[in-house]
């Protein structure tokens, strides 16, 4: 009987403690490492600092954000956005945009207007849940919680983001306890899981594509696209992670990715390849996965009779990762066009826009890969796409 009482008391105590642990906690500093380089505003963390009138939700719908709504004034031929009232700027002043800022001519479809507004074409305001405290461009950024954030103060006090770190270095820092959240290679998933590391694997949110320089011949591009054995690479080299694709956007976002060919036809590639053609392919020493993929592509392409040479600069083609910044297909495509520095397609259906982007064969999508984050056990509520405002750190005991 006495033992039974002790067991009940222990169970109650455990329940009380557990409830306390799972409750979000304010405070703490989150250390994040990323391979992204450049301005923080061009990374996945941009939304934590900068805000736009509208923002894409998890279903790809454009939803009000800094704008609380929009109405159409047919008499003046404009769409008028209503500004949110309690948006505080870095110097603790209220955001008070002028009428012109919130007025858009109705010469374009509303969808396009909203997508462009979501991209920040019209309004970008530094009013996010975090503010930049200190920044070394391309190296590190220290963010502090925006106490006056209109959506409520974030749980974390500080976020330290180290940029331009290779995945290998990130993993090393993670193991040494220097980082709480790091990006992990999909090829490391198995090993990390075996090591009981907490992993956050997203849906495919990154496109791996072969991008040709303008001067390469169209036939060579076609031959290369046909000679690459995507499936073998995905199954063996990518540990069956991600998806094989011939489209820029993954199937789960666009719904039509399967319409773009992923055919592997060496004999046709041989027929297409100009005699004696060569290809100088760029190899990124910093990215282990891309480097091994490039090596395999070189082997595949050489089967088509194209003499492939690997280099680190002055290349005719390179394999790159293209982050999908939005789950709205059209917004994602416009962002990709901007990232690839190619002309934005005419506004149309997502399929038409994507077909337009891929028409000249300069971009050959190969895979869609998930983003993998390795998290320290005390990091809670981490999500991809990331929303640092919801993340909190469990108190370590």
């Amino acid at each position, binding site marked *: 009987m006495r033992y039974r009482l002790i067991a009940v008391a222990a169970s109650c105590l455990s329940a009380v403690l557990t409830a306390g642990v799972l409750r979000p906690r304010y405070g703490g500093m989150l250390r994040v490492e990323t391979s992204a380089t450049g301005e923080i505003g061009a990374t996945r963390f941009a939304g934590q600092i900068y805000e736009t009138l509208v923002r894409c939700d998890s279903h790809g719908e454009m939803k009000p954000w800094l704008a609380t709504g929009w109405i159409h004034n047919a008499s003046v031929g404009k769409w008028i956005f209503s500004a949110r009232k309690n948006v505080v700027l870095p110097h603790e002043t209220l955001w008070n945009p002028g009428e012109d800022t919130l007025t858009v001519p109705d010469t374009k479809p509303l969808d396009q207007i909203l997508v462009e507004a979501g991209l920040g074409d019209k309004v970008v305001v530094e009013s996010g849940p975090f503010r930049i405290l200190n920044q070394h461009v391309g190296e590190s950024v220290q963010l502090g919680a925006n106490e006056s954030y209109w959506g409520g103060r974030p749980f974390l006090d500080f976020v330290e983001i180290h940029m331009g770190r290779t995945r290998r270095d990130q993993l090393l820092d993670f193991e040494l306890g220097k980082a709480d959240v790091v990006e992990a290679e999909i090829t490391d998933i198995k090993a990390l899981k075996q090591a009981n590391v907490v992993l956050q694997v997203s849906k495919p949110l990154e496109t791996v594509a072969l991008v040709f320089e303008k001067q390469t011949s169209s036939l060579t591009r076609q031959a290369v696209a046909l000679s690459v054995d995507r499936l*073998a690479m995905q199954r063996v080299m990518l*540990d*069956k992670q991600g998806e094989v694709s011939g489209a820029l956007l993954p199937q789960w976002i666009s719904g039509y990715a399967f319409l773009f060919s992923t055919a592997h036809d060496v004999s046709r590639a041989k027929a297409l390849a100009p005699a004696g053609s060569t290809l100088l392919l760029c190899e990124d020493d910093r990215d282990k996965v891309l480097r*091994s993929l490039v*090596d*395999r592509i*070189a*082997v595949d392409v050489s089967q088509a009779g194209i003499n492939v040479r*690997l280099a680190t600069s002055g290349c005719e083609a390179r394999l790159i990762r293209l982050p999908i910044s939005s789950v709205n297909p059209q917004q994602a495509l416009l962002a990709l066009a901007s990232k690839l520095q190619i002309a934005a397609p005419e506004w149309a259906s997502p399929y038409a826009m994507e077909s337009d982007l891929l028409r000249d064969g300069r971009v050959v999508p190969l895979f869609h890969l998930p983003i993998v984050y390795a998290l320290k056990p005390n990091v809670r509520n981490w999500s991809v796409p990331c929303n640092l405002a919801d993340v909190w750190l469990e108190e370590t005991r």
Partner: protein
Amino acid sequence: MTFRTKLLIVSSLTVAGAVTIVTGGVLVAARQVFERVDAERQEALLEQFKREIKTQGAAVSAAVVRAASSTLLTRMAAEANQPEPDFASFYTDAQVLAENTGLEFLDITRKDLMVLSSAHWPVRFGYKNDWRSCIECKPNQAFLTKIPLPDGTTAMALAAFQRQGDLILLGAKRLDAAFMKALGEAPGVRTLLWVGPQECFSAGGPVALSAEFQNLVVEALRKPVVSRRIGNEAYLAVPLQQNGAVFGVLLVGTSLQQQITLERSILKIGFWVAAGGILLGVLLGWWATERVTRPVNELARGARDVAAGNWSAKVNVPAGDEMGELADAFNRMTAELVERQNRALQAERVAAWRELARRLAHELKNPLFPLQITIENMQRARAAGAQEFDETFQEGARTLLDEVRNFKTIIGRFSDFSRMPPPQFERVNIGDAISDAVRLYEAQLSLNDIRVHAQVSCAALTIDADPDQLRRALGNLILNAIDAMPNGGSLTFSVVGLEHAVRIAVTDTGQGLTEEEGSRLFTPYYTTKQHGTGLGLAIVQGVVSDHQGTIIVESGTGRGATFIIELPITQRAAERP
């Protein structure tokens, strides 16, 4: 070329030739020895290479066996037995296996050689293993092969394979600098392994081959063994073959530095020996020629003296050898010559006196006969009466005076010949001298119906001569021609300028001379004429001789006669006034 020079050249050449032959022989012998040693060293290294191949091959084979018996390969083999095997997870396992077994190259393939996992080229999964000749080999038997590398080059390797269920495991170790180092090159020996146009290495690491090496390799790829000298090394190129396929070329080079040093030493010694020999030969030759040529020179000098008329010349050569005997013989010869000359001179003098007496007797006898007749007539006329005597006396006295004058003339000629004075040289124009002489005898020539022709090639030709004696000599030749042409004819003077002399030819169209007459023509007191003294041509010869010239006669019976005189253009300074 003097005997001494010849002797020196011959002795030098003999010494140099002998040294050259000996040096060449030593060089050839040394080279043969070195070549034999080099060949042995190369052969030994080749044998070492083969042994090392065997040893390394056994090690590779053992490593492959270890890899084939590993748990990893067992798991793969088990997966291969599944209805739908999935080898994706084994993608990098070959690398682990290679590291564990120390193999540089490792491919795990299916039965059809499709690569499932590759250690050295992981991304090549799904493609066929194309290591050459492995199919023809047996498990546990190492073989040479060429392995394609990701950078487009190939590596030569020692490979072996093992089967494990439905899988084949191929492992290999590269033949690289470490392997070459293991051969343990002897000093002076270098080994290169040519694998491809861009890959060649020695024990020290990669080597860039020069064009000469490339050519040697190209030749070696066609022939079993090729040897060639490149720089200071002798190379043996041996193609490495396996089942008829050539995988590379082993180049074994031995340094020729020692050989070259020895050859240079031999050549240097040979040179100095030859130089010393030649010098010694020269000295000995000089000494020998001094001993030989000095008596010879003495003899030559004596002979020249004799030729110059000094018949009493003697040579002073120490007796005791052949040259001494020769010198004695020479001296005896000159003594005998002098004696004979004296005897000949004496005989000639006697003969000359006899000839003079005969001539004098002949010359004097002719006028004596008229004198005797005249005197006898005068005696008869005295006996006959005064009137007849007076008549006879006048005529007889005239005859006596004529004959006395004749005596005087004869005596004058002899006197002139004996009193021939030395020439007084001055520049004389030959043409003028001939003209003057012809002018003196113009009347007699005309009287005898003789036409005179003159062919003077150079009218301004002048020589050093005594004009009086020259005119006298030419006059005697004209008189001689007049006597030779009693029935008329033509007399031709031709003058030709030579390099240092003039040639004067006096040609008549007379009855000519017999050979005997020609040979005695210039002998004093010799004449073919009834009233001649035999002194005219002797005087001509005397004048020509005093002018350092020569005179010859060309004639034949019925062909006339040509007297050819050659006189020097200039006389020696000492002889000129």
